[in-house]
């Protein structure tokens, strides 16, 4: 099960967030800060999966933008890893060469995300 989906830049600014479980607003900010911190602290040689508290983070970096997905223990890391890339490919096509600012145009991104999501057989 996917718990949340985040797009955060290196400065720690959230570009897109979507939670699949209700989290209080003030706790979201805290969580996002911690998540991006743990992603930033990792080098390229390290693997893209982090065990964080009782769930797992799967992240990919595209330029200065991190896409982080939080999942619970039963989820397959590699599937999510590839899913992130799939999503970015869709965005890239949609915006014809996607950039970080495009992502902020989240109403569209959200729709793209949701469609990709359902298309690839997640929900």
């Amino acid at each position, binding site marked *: 099960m996917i718990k949340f989906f985040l797009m955060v830049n290196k400065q720690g*600014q*959230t570009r*897109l*967030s*979507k939670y699949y479980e*209700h989290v209080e*607003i*003030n706790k*979201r*900010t805290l969580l*996002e800060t911690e998540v991006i911190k743990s992603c930033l602290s*990792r*080098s390229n*040689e*390290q*693997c*893209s*999966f*982090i*065990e964080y*508290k*009782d769930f797992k983070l799967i992240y990919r970096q595209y330029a200065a933008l991190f896409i982080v997905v939080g999942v619970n223990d039963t989820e*397959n*890391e*590699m*599937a999510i*890893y*590839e*899913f992130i890339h*799939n999503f970015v*490919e*869709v965005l*890239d*096509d*949609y*915006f*014809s060469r996607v950039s970080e*600012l*495009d992502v*902020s*145009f*989240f*109403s*569209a991104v*959200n*729709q*793209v995300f*949701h*469609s*990709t999501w*359902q*298309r*690839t*057989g*997640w*929900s």
Partner: protein
Amino acid sequence: MSDIVEKTLTALPGLFLQNQSASGPAAAKASFSSRLGGLVRGITALTSKHEEEKLIQQELSNLKATVSAPTTTLKMMKECMVRLIYCEMLGYDASFGYIHAIKLAQQGNLLEKRVGYLAVSLFLHESHELLLLLVNTVVKDLQSTNLVEVCMALTIVSQIFPREMIPAVLPLIEDKLQHSKEIIRRKAVLALYKFYLIAPNQVQHIHIKFRKALCDRDVGVMAASLHIYLRMIKENSSAYKDLTGSFVTILKQVVGGKLPIDFNYHSVPAPWLQIQLLRILGLLGKDDQRTSELMYDVLDESLRRAELNHNVTYGLKALTYVIQQDPTLALQHQMTIIECLDHPDPIIKRETLELLYRITNAQNITVIVQKMLEYLHQSKEEYIIVNLVGKIAELAEKYAPDNAWFIQTMNAVFSVGGDVMHPDIPNNFLRLLAEGFDDETENQQLRLYAVQSYFTLLDVENVFYPQRFLQVMSWVLGEYSYLLDKETPEEVITKLYKLLRSDSISSETKAWIIAAVTKLTPQAHSSNVVERLIQEFTTSLDTCLRQHAFELKHLHENVKFMKGLLPVDKSCEDMVVDASLSFLDGFVAEELSQGAAPYKPHHQRQEEKLSQEKVLSFEPYGLSFSSSGFSGRQSPAGISLGSDISGNSTETGLKETNSLKLEGIKKLWGKEGYLPKKESKTGDETEALPVPQENIIMENVDQIITKNDQSQALTQSKEEKEKQLLASSLFVGLGSESTINLLGKADTLSHKFRRKSKVKETKSGQTTTAQNMTCSSFSSSSNVTYEEDYYLDHLQDRGDKEVKKFSLNSELLDSESLTELPLVEKISNCRLSAPSLFADNNMEVFHPPQSTAASVASEISLAASLLEETTEHMHSDLTEVCNNETISVSSYKIWKDECLLMVWSVFNKSASELKSANLEIAPAENFKITEQPGCCLPVIEAESTKNFQYSVQMEKPFTEGNLSGFINYQVMDTHSVQLEFSVNLSLLDFIRPLKISTEDFGKLWLSFANDVKQNVKMSESQAALPSTLKALQQELRLHVVDIIGNEGLLACQLLPSIPCLLHFRVHGDMLALWFRSSCSTLPDYLLYQCQKVMEGS
């Protein structure tokens, strides 16, 4: 670029581009001139969090003004909504806009509606109250002719929907499953999946439709249905075995590249779909050879086609899973694993350790644990520490090569894991030490090593150990430092005292240390330190510490006694506690005779309070304590024994133990001051009984004899006999519920599994209690049954004389009770062992096992045909529970003596035979269901009836519960049909009369700790004793034991064998009910039923 991208893009409704020139998706960039673009850019340019906050607060106040202004158009509102979402995403509260988001979804055109829905899905959560306002909009949109609107409605439903409103949209969504557009069908399936997640019961009836979706010609719809199946199969894989073939076929098609090319991702066919299918197959094939065989081919195919990925962690993970099947596989990858172990990435390291954990054995344990400890020392994260510490402890316990290593490893675990680790770890460790293995010398060595190791650890200056570690140390030192050769107990005490005075330890730990000192004190010769300690802590502000200190102080005054009380190395023996606090009876009686109010249990007080609030009471002292009122409240036991007790008799019933927590509390005090304690021992330990203890017993017995008056002369002559009796009765119920035994009822066993043979099965105390009544006639002034120790000698010859002895005993009881009832009533059955810190582990609170396994049920022979049984036993009427055009299922209850037998009779109404009829009862929380033979019938012939029987036991008392199940069958070899039903079971279905004599009633009454009293107003028709009795007898299935004047004694038992006794008294139109049982909750439930009967008719 993958094909799946193209597919997604075509599927995307180009809605949000509607208001722009039709120049394609790229035009989206143009919208950055919008105000949102401005906001985003503004924020991106900022450098500090503070500036961001200022900007957003300003933005929010602007938005607040705009959204509430009446002039704001929907188009502007959409613009505002987008900005609001952005603000909230950054962590600023925008709740003022929620209602406007819903309005926008209601009123807007397509684009505005879409933004409205999006905002709702992001803002609100499942239980948000505003969500209810959305339901109408969703219903309207679902009925819309515009596909896009239907899509949006389905999307929002699959994201967020209030559970209680599901029925409002369910039929609409079900219709959509037949829609001609696949996107609608797919979204409808996903919406139903959502419903399944939040309210599985509501979509139960559409399971067949899910099967249709699984076979949908569109891959998307099929894929969506897999979510539901994965979920359902996870919950109950056996119900979907028949679908294995379908899943295998689908996977075959996917792997074989039969799907449209759009589903390829980097030339892998639908990878996510494959994963989903493999998960489902995994669940279906688990522990099922036959089903698994169906999958082998396709799994092999999938494996062959899958390109192996090279992410190290992933490989390790895979290896971890594989190794669970076959550890030797790891050998091939040894070098990789070693490399991973030194990998700079801690995540990979951890995965590696996880893998090592799986392959640990007795040979490699030291190395692996060392690696784990190294990692542990570097790690800072609590979650990791907790996890790893648990693993190390587990491994160490399992494979420890020698004592020294084990203790050292556990020391490391305790120092690092400290106070975050799972509390089971220290508990298990201490239990291991205490209970030991089979080899006694080995045990002693282990203990000695632990003691030595802690002794040295405490010597180190300026080191702070976690509290838990200190607690472990103090327990071990207190318990086992007698094993030390050189160091005297004084030294240990001094050390502990030093620790006690340190500031860094919590008061909980201090309590542990004082307990350790208490244990050591009898072994020490000089006691300066102890005295200092007592002096210091009897004035402690901490009540608990002060209590401990006082206990120590008083014990310390009588060293000889203390030695007997705190024997060395006896932490494993059980103790039995008198939960009924009967030793207080004398005190209570005295108080009562001086006019004190009798104790009322909490619930009674509350009810009285409630009833007083409701109606004006015209009887100001309805529950007066005048002498006449009092005599009516005498112990029913006394009455039943035919004795004329005066007002100052003891009031044994005035105890409420439900609210008292006895576990872990040391009972040191009795009426006379200190309660001497002894441990209830099993036979083979008797020989090892320390001499001093016997002395004490002698002394005490002497004391008692001198204290008591002439009545003892009579008993004393019988003393020897009684001792034998007690001994035999002590052991007659070894591990069984002896109350029932006494009464010649079914013998049910309750086992208590322990890891070590040394700890014997707990003796059940009921027998003793009954027997104690006789003994207490000469030990009434004391609260302990010293006699036991004597009796132990006579264990051997108890043999089969038990029965005879018992009857003799009851004669004794009978004769004595007439003259010495007040004494008899001072039952004393408080047998305590030395205070142990692990009281929870080996303390038996004085209740019979609440639910002895329904062994009886399985023994029922059902050779007799059902009809015979039906006539033999009481049974309920046949009621139909479910039906359809082919079958009708009816059920009835047969109240057999030893269980409740539920019979479902299935009548085949149709003219054809039904195949593979199968009736299953869902496991219910409070019921234990035993299937009777012949429950799965291959064929039900046309127009015939078949019966399915289940015997049901109640696991713990409660008022009523539901038993649900289903029947499925196949018609004409084609489709299978499933019908669901449920039956209501009440507590009364499990109540049976308990046929006992008045004497037995008296004995049992005194032995039960749980009681409930209540006054019930009777309806006019019942206001006489006979009719009351009749009602109770018939409605509640109580056995009338005796009737004395206007009082009645009734008894019943909850199957399999929990007895409950009722004493009632009629005065006026009030009925004073008084229940007692060995089970703490049963009286309450019975009382409720009683009230129903009384008020109902």
